[in-house]
């Protein structure tokens, strides 16, 4: 699994960090950073949830 955040869309709404705190971190610049590019195990489900909840649909998950 590969996780990509479109930084042009991201507005720091925090849903990703709340859903998958090990994978996403929203910085002081209000942009999400991907901490684990290729998450495994339980993080995969959390990342899918984050992608679904992202208000601006800025997260893409590639298998």
């Amino acid at each position, binding site marked *: 699994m590969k996780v990509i955040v479109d930084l042009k*869309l991201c*507005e720091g*709404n*925090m849903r990703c960090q709340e859903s998958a705190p090990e994978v996403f971190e929203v910085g002081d610049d209000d942009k999400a950073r991907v901490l684990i590019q290729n998450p495994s195990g339980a993080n995969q489900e959390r990342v899918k949830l984050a992608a679904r909840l992202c208000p*601006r649909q800025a997260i893409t998950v590639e298998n």
Partner: protein
Amino acid sequence: MQTQEHQFSPSNINIIGPDHYAKNGYPHAEWAYLRRHKPVFWCEWPHTDPFWAITKHADIVQISKQPKLFINSKRLLVFVPDQRSDEEPVPPFRHLLNMDPPEHGDYRTIVSRRFTPRAVRELQPEIERVTREVLDKLVGRTECDFVIDISSKIPLAVIAELLGVPHQDWDRLFRWTNQVIGGGDPEFQEGGSQDETFDQARMELFNYFTEMVNKRIKNPTNDITSIVANSTVNGGPMPQFEMLSYYLLLVVAGNETTRNATTGGLQALIENPEQFRRLQKDPSLIKTAVEEIVRWTSPVIQFTRTATEDTEIRGQKIRAGESLCLFYPSANRDEEVFEDSFKFDVGRTPNPHVAFGIGEHFCLGANLARLELEVIYRQLMERLEYAELNGPIERLRSSFVGGIKHMPIKFKLKPAVQ
């Protein structure tokens, strides 16, 4: 929910007539029928061009996620005028709502950092102070109009302060908002028609902000008026029409929707007393309660998209150029997404409602609206000893915004806890 489906058929179903909304509120029975039988429904209605009515949650998400295939600029919403006009109406504004990518993103980033969860948290003490003041004025009274005395006051104060509008002009912002959104309602009409009312308010607002812009260009400040006034787009200053339209959007959107969510939230709590007691007993439910209030009230009824290419939704062919009207309150009652979707449940989890939209055009002010509702309801739950309806609710005559103009209540408020 019990729906009397036999009364509906695709030829007589009314989901867009403004009088229907004023008289009966949201057509939830009609939407439930459509979700079940005709989720992508070709709707022909007098005085407006036909459109596809989209009523399912998944379809609204799918359409909203493709802002290049489904654009906003051609037809922002299904507007039903009182008389058929032969001319194609040209909207007298250009702002985020009727812009498309990539332009939409260029304009949106100018203010978006002021509306992140981090940025709005700094406003919390001010929102708490405003709310406390509004409620303090009502201690000792037993009756009020919840809209005029409470729910309209707080969002107005918040957006006015964000824009740097001085206190003596707040009632003007209030009137312009009502006239822009409620121009189709006799109570707010000035001049002869909806268009005249809208245009008069728009021009007054444009003139007002033209003056403010001139001041902010000479002496920049930290308010949003100044940020927009001194912004650049594509390497140049923002054109004047787009700039004034930006203020129109911020004033109206910052006022009307939160007001209606606040009002509809109390109505829901009064009509579901067990949920009222539950929230009062357990303030830790405030965040889920706010989400449920937003889902339940869904103050924006619809926005519309236009397909740029031939495509398909749920197997239905959609031709390039056809409109798709997204009915958010319907998606937020979708039985396939929400368990017991017609139950108002202040603890509802998960709650993936789309009342703020989703994707490219996700509500810019969502985090601010959530914070305002959280502050208002936390204080109301602490201080409201009881509340009941004290007469009929008066709804706005609009099939765009689910407005409540007046909600008389009987109530008792405790003084603030010092």
